[in-house]
């Protein structure tokens, strides 16, 4: 694909085609979703042997399972015989998946086969197949690589994809914040049961762009929610994030080679919100102090907060509130299925957990007073970009052009010198363009190295 005329990050101009074209969409499924690291779920969703969570990668259904050795697997949810989904439950526990079509059976916990996901049973194996079917070759397709990053499970279909730690680079501080408790301890969160899933009428990249560094939209898109106040109150009133008084000088961070981005720097953080309820306020002030102590002891930076995106399609509120993540699953060029997970420390007092759950639900998701206005914009921006005339005119990504400097905290990142910038988006599309133009990871890495 000739991407030069579609994406020009150096001059801040990007064609509408990449948001509405069928051809680009199909190419993305091959060159982005089949090759990058994608988020599947949290380990707290599959704590026990035989547990499974029906997840998704790109457009495809993928089963996240836990085997009897405690290992996690991600398996394409499609029978190798005729393709039927071997599991249409959202979650559960089983030692096997028996396909409802012809009965081919796959082991999930690994006790009946060499590796979880393998085919262990086929009807009429002797009389019909003469005992000659090599069952070890017909198991559920596993992902090529899978990691558990402090509880966050990621996988990729591409065996050539760089190792996860290389892929995330300095963005790991944002992921670490997502995976850590409010006291900063990694791996000490769990997911509330219930992943919100809903369909929106827009291209998936609008979602990623929104969180990776679009500070610009906040005051306009969300003017109504800050007028009514849904946050924790306390001394900074009930703005949606709570204590949202970070200095304007705090820059956004983005990764030119990797495509990730977030609205803060790794080195600066301003604390938890203040709450109107004195006990909850005191609780979080204590947690903040604990967090600072722990991060200093572990040599980890104290920032990397707030909205951010891991390329290509996982966005998160790292560290602050709401503690949540969203994955934008492509359905079509103008349709996306978004999934939202809500995370919580694994040791909160009941009243704190309850307070946070209510805040999360009124903030995010389709019933969230904040998120609703984002989706309205993505919907009609997409619709208004599908027309013949509209497609001739590119989008403007020139906010903060030529205002980025190397990050003070990370050697693979840049910071914008003004807190409102589209530098993060420009770098996101640099990465996008690199992947879309390359047929292999070797080629991607060579192109990246040349820059």
């Amino acid at each position, binding site marked *: 694909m000739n991407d030069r005329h579609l994406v020009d990050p150096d001059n801040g101009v990007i064609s509408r085609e990449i948001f509405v074209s069928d051809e680009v969409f199909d190419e993305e499924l091959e060159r982005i979703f089949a090759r990058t690291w994608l988020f599947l779920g949290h380990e707290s969703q599959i704590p026990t042997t035989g547990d499974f969570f029906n997840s998704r990668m790109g457009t495809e259904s993928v089963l996240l399972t836990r085997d009897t050795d405690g290992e996690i697997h991600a398996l394409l949810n499609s029978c190798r015989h005729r393709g039927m989904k071997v599991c*249409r*439950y*959202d*979650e*559960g526990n089983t030692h096997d998946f028996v396909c409802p079509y012809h009965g081919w059976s796959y082991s999930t916990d690994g006790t009946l086969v060499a590796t979880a996901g393998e085919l262990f049973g086929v009807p009429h194996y002797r009389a019909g197949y003469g005992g000659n079917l090599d069952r070890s070759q017909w198991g559920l397709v596993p992902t090529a690589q899978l990691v558990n990053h402090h509880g966050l499970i990621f996988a990729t279909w591409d065996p050539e994809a760089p190792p996860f730690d290389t892929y995330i680079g300095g963005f790991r501080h944002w992921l670490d914040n997502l995976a850590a408790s409010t006291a900063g301890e990694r791996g000490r969160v769990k997911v*509330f*049961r*219930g*992943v*919100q*899933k*809903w*369909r*929106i*009428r827009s291209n998936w990249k609008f979602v990623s762009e929104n969180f990776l560094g679009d500070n610009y939209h906040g005051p306009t*898109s969300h*003017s*109504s*929610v800050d*007028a*009514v*106040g*849904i946050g924790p109150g306390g001394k900074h009133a009930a703005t949606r994030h709570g204590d949202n008084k970070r200095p304007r000088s705090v820059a956004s961070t983005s990764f030119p080679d990797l495509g990730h981005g977030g609205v803060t720097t790794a080195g600066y953080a301003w604390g938890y919100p203040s709450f109107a309820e004195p006990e909850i306020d005191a609780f979080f002030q204590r947690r903040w102090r604990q967090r600072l102590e722990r991060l200093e002891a572990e040599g980890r930076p104290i920032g990397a907060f707030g909205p951010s995106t891991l390329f290509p399609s996982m966005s998160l509120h790292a560290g602050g509130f709401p503690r949540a993540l969203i994955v934008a699953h492509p359905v079509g060029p103008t349709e996306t*299925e978004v999934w939202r997970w*809500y995370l919580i420390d694994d040791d909160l007092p009941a009243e704190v957990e*309850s307070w946070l*759950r*209510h805040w999360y*639900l*009124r903030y995010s*998701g*389709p*019933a969230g*007073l904040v*998120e*609703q*206005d984002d*989706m*309205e*914009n993505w*919907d*009609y921006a997409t619709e208004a970009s599908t027309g013949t005339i509209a497609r001739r005119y590119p989008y403007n990504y020139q906010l903060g052009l030529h205002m980025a400097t190397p990050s003070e905290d990370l050697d693979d990142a840049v910071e914008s010198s003004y807190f409102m910038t589209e530098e993060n988006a420009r770098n996101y599309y640099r990465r996008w363009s690199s992947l879309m133009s390359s047929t292999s990871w070797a080629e991607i890495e060579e192109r990246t190295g040349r820059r």
Partner: protein
Amino acid sequence: MSEQRLAELLLKEEIVEFLHHEADLLDERRFDEWLDLLEDDLEYAMPMRLNVRHDEANRETTRPGDEVCWFDEGKSTLAKRVEQIQTGQHWAEEPASRVSHLVSNVRIRSVDPDPFEPAEVEVGCRFLVYRNRVAAETDLWVGRRTDVLRATPDGWRLRRRHLLLDQNVLLAKNLTVLF
């Protein structure tokens, strides 16, 4: 006809009239008057529906109070929703959607203490909420609803609403409607 039976029929009619009046208020966007029908201790929840094995039916619906729901809130949050719409800058409802609430299959489940001097009534029904927005954007939400209504000097008031939407993946981009 017994006096008991007559009292039950009249109560049913009164409840249906209340529910239809409530639907009128919402559809006519008389949101402040609708808020006045809500008790201060209102519980308003719409849990999510999961696909589970037939013998795990007790895990089919997420639990209000504990787990993620579409809605799990009280009167103060609903008041915020109304206030947000009234700013005129809630883009998801500006311009406003056209909404119709249909309420059917109304059945009185229980009456406390009796239909002669009822203090609290539990009502089951089906809801069908239709929304059309901007031009071609149309949504349909259908499901079961359980309401608890409390008798007050000013008439019936809503004390509890539990909605079971018949969808797994929400097939709408948002839930700005009040159910």
